[in-house]
């Protein structure tokens, strides 16, 4: 049996070590806790959007006897929303290019892709603000009827997710620019990327189920 004093315990220390950068972390799963946590969060977020999408589908054509007005489906501008969807889809490409760039230690390219992703996300949010504003001017407010409440709650929650993603992307850009995040911490960018791709797949479902399916 090895003497306890001879065992190298440096790998068991808390915080990132040089050993961590080249090996799997000494966790039970062999996976980093941060990444497992992000996937668990995304799994739980599926439930949130599952509930919101279900609610909208059940209420989409109901205005109720005490309320009136149009439903969101009456006012959809499909060509406009299609462009927004395409923009968000392409932001997933720029996000994955940011991840591969930092893994190759191409920091300038990583910063460029991070900013591009944030810009595309901002264009999507601007489109959503324009859509909400035009709907409101046409008489569809949040409390107009039960259908409109379900629509604004669903798309609004998604918009909040995208907005938080933009804040995270800009924060990553600042940290990469300042040198606090380098190639050895590429997984941080990858985890932010997972969140960003998640808001993209949620929109894939919303675009098809809410906007396109009659």
């Amino acid at each position, binding site marked *: 049996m090895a003497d306890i004093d001879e065992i190298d315990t440096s790998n068991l220390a808390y915080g990132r070590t040089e050993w961590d950068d080249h*090996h799997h972390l000494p966790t039970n799963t062999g996976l980093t806790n941060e990444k497992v946590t992000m996937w668990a969060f995304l799994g739980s977020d*599926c439930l949130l959007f599952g509930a919101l999408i279900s609610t909208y589908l*059940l209420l989409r054509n109901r205005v109720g006897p005490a309320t009136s007005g149009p439903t969101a489906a009456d006012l959809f501008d499909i060509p406009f929303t299609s462009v927004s969807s395409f923009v968000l889809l*392409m932001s997933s490409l720029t996000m994955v290019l940011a991840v591969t760039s930092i893994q190759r230690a191409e920091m300038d390219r990583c910063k460029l892709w991070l900013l591009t992703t944030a810009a595309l996300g901002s264009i999507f949010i601007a489109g959503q603000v324009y859509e909400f504003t035009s709907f409101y001017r046409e008489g569809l407010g949040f409390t107009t009827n039960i259908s409109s409440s379900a629509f604004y709650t669903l798309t609004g929650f998604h918009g909040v997710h995208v907005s938080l993603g933009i804040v995270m992307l800009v924060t990553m850009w600042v940290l990469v620019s300042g040198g606090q995040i380098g190639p050895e911490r590429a997984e941080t960018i990858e985890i932010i990327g997972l969140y960003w791709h998640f808001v993209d*797949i949620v929109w894939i479902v919303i675009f098809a189920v809410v906007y*396109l399916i009659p």
Partner: protein
Amino acid sequence: MNTAAVSEEETHQEHHDHGLSDVGYIKVALLLAVLTAVEVATYFWDFGVLEVPSLLILMVVKFQIVVSYFMHLKFDSKVFSYLFITGVILAMLVFAAMGTSMAFWQNPSGCDISDFC
């Protein structure tokens, strides 16, 4: 170079070989763009009875592509797949539960609870 060093280098190389090349990701994005264009085409042209099934299939395919390639689930640990798929299945169960409640939970007058009657 000793065996341990070779093994370490291979492990390091394998880590960075996960996923596609940049060109591969661009091809995946182009495929997604084409699928989106087909989706939007269903709005302008009448696909008849095939419209809803084709939209659902396109949605699932796009979802699968983004999760598999952009989110690396195809190349990553199965633990992540289990975590995520569990969430997706639970979300579908939520939808099924809400659907049944709307279908069966009606007041004595027979009108749907969502009509606020």
